[in-house]
């Protein structure tokens, strides 16, 4: 998230991740530092910091 909003804030960034407690896959797309899409729909994205 730090990279998405700083070093890579001028481009599209795709993050493939997973729920640490289970095995669900998470696919999140950011464009120019802003959240574009997140799958599954129940994904919660925390955007905080300075």
């Amino acid at each position, binding site marked *: 998230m730090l*990279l998405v909003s700083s*070093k*890579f804030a001028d*481009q*599209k*960034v*795709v*993050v*493939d*991740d*997973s729920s*640490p407690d*289970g*095995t669900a*896959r998470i696919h999140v797309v950011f464009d120019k530092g802003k959240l574009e899409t997140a799958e599954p729909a129940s994904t919660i994205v925390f955007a905080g910091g300075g």
Partner: protein
Amino acid sequence: MPRKPAGKLFFITAIFAFSLLAGNSPAAAGGHKLKRDEKKVLDYLVKDWGQDYSVTSVDLAMRAVGLPPSDDIRYHIGSYIKQHPELHEVLRNWGWVTVVLTPDEKLIARHLINAQRDGKPAPSLAEIAGAVSLDQEQIKRGLAMLERYEIIRRDPSRGGAGYAVLPHYINWEPRLDFLFHQVTLAGGRQFNTN
């Protein structure tokens, strides 16, 4: 006092220097040699690790240097990395497991670990496949890789797919072992972050 012949001295010095160079060559140490293409992957990783919090995995590095997917080549490089934590502080900080496994293999491992840790029956191939959204052939390949790395071992007595997780990996959370955060940039660069 008689002087030693200059030629002999040079020969001894040359042998000594060569020994030092050989000892410093990570891809030739420990009796486990990497082929030229495999060394390219390792060089890519050593350069990439640590940049942008990178803990990039072998599969991504193979893709980056243009090697076609191969479980055998990936295992050969991964085994080398497992034996050589001196290669990079990323390995010493986060462990070798997280850089040698693919996301699919990590999810398969987690499904087995969670069941065993929670005292549930071992999942079958079909149950693992359903849980991680892969087909059963992919699950078999993933299990084979986890077994090669001695993360799991065959144990038909557990039922299900017939594997048991080794105790060291049941509580893996202090390490990154089975986590992945895979980043793909617009320019095509892919890496994993911690």
